[in-house]
């Protein structure tokens, strides 16, 4: 295959698989800030396979396999054996609020004037699970139930993470706004 054909093939695979790879890497990585690097590593590996005429069958599953390997490579193999308790610290910090109803408009809790950079910086200070939940809820547009199934946690836990973090985000943005006004 010529270089041009390789590029075309690569772009095709990239378009078809980017979102699923992104979702996988976000769910597996330790920090959202690492996601871009890992995704790039994955697709560089994919490109190498293309130029060595490696036949890629079951493209999505194959590339997710590469992504898994790259995540482990990025963090070291200790990461694989590390027991990541989804309820880790959050178990003590977040109280389960079973009374939170599904139809609660979570978005209204966010301050209207939203500085995206500030929100991103704030989210990066939160735990990995909260970052994953936000990504899956806003970017992948999954429901709370789907998020719970993806991350193997309870729905209440997902709701609480969202609700509590958005409340904190709101207070954070209000403080930021007060500072800026001054």
């Amino acid at each position: 295959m010529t270089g041009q054909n390789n590029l075309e093939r690569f772009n095709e695979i990239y378009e078809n698989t980017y979102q699923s790879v992104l979702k996988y890497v976000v769910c597996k990585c330790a920090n959202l800030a690492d996601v871009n690097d890992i995704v790039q590593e994955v697709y560089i590996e994919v490109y190498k396979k293309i130029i060595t005429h490696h036949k890629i069958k079951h493209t999505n599953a194959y590339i997710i396999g590469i992504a898994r390997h790259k995540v482990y490579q990025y963090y070291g193999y200790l990461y694989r054996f590390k027991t990541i308790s989804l309820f880790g610290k959050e178990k003590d910090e977040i109280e389960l609020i079973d009374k939170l109803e599904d139809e609660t408009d979570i978005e209204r809790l966010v301050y209207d004037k939203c500085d995206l950079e500030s929100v991103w910086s704030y989210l990066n200070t939160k735990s990995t699970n909260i970052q994953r939940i936000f990504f899956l809820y806003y970017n992948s547009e999954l429901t709370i139930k789907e998020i719970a199934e993806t991350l193997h946690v309870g729905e209440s836990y997902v709701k609480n993470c969202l609700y509590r973090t958005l409340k904190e985000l709101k207070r954070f943005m209000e403080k930021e706004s007060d500072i800026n006004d001054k």
Partner: protein
Amino acid sequence: MTNKEMMKKLFHDKLNQEKNRQRILARITSEPQKQVVYGKWLKIAAACMLVLTAAYVLYDQRNPTASKEKEVILHINEISKPIYIENDAEDCKKTESELIFGGCYREPLDAASDAQANAAIDCLDLSGLDIPDDLIDSERNYIYHLQSDRNKNNEDLLQYEKSYTDDDSERSIKIQYTKGNQPIYAEYIEEGKASIINKQKLYIYRYDNSYIAQLRLNQMNVTVETANITESELIALLHSITKE
């Protein structure tokens, strides 16, 4: 724009698909060149390692003593008094043999005209000995006897001796060996710490500039006596005696 849309935009900007693609393509175009360079140097390094290894193996094969030295465990036992016991001059005059010590005489083999002893002198294979270059076979073989006179029988034969000396007779090596008897100096030397050369146990003693090495080889007791021979020359000699 709703807040949900804004949050989606946030993730879209931060984990941007198109930006990532551009970065990937930039790395793809620059990385192959790096790989070629690294790959080339790795191959050169691997080739050098191979050559060095081959050279080392070749050198080791051509210098067996160098590698055999690793098989040497050396203990030189220092002795404080000389082995030789001075002979009574009067006794020496009476005999044609050299009195070594009480009851033991050293005599040139050919002088004894002992055909059987002559034939038996080669019971120890001394070919391939690593003798210092300045020493040559003296071609004088000796036997040690309990009797001083000519009428000797083999029951009195203690051991044989071959010797190598330099022109000035200052440096010498004597190799004494016996099949059924103890080394003649055995009772005069306290057993010291053993050395090992070529998996062969032996005892090495030093007095002044002389060495005595005693070992059991092919069911024979062998004693090597040296004068003014260096330790490394002695080790090389013992290597050649004990090699299989």
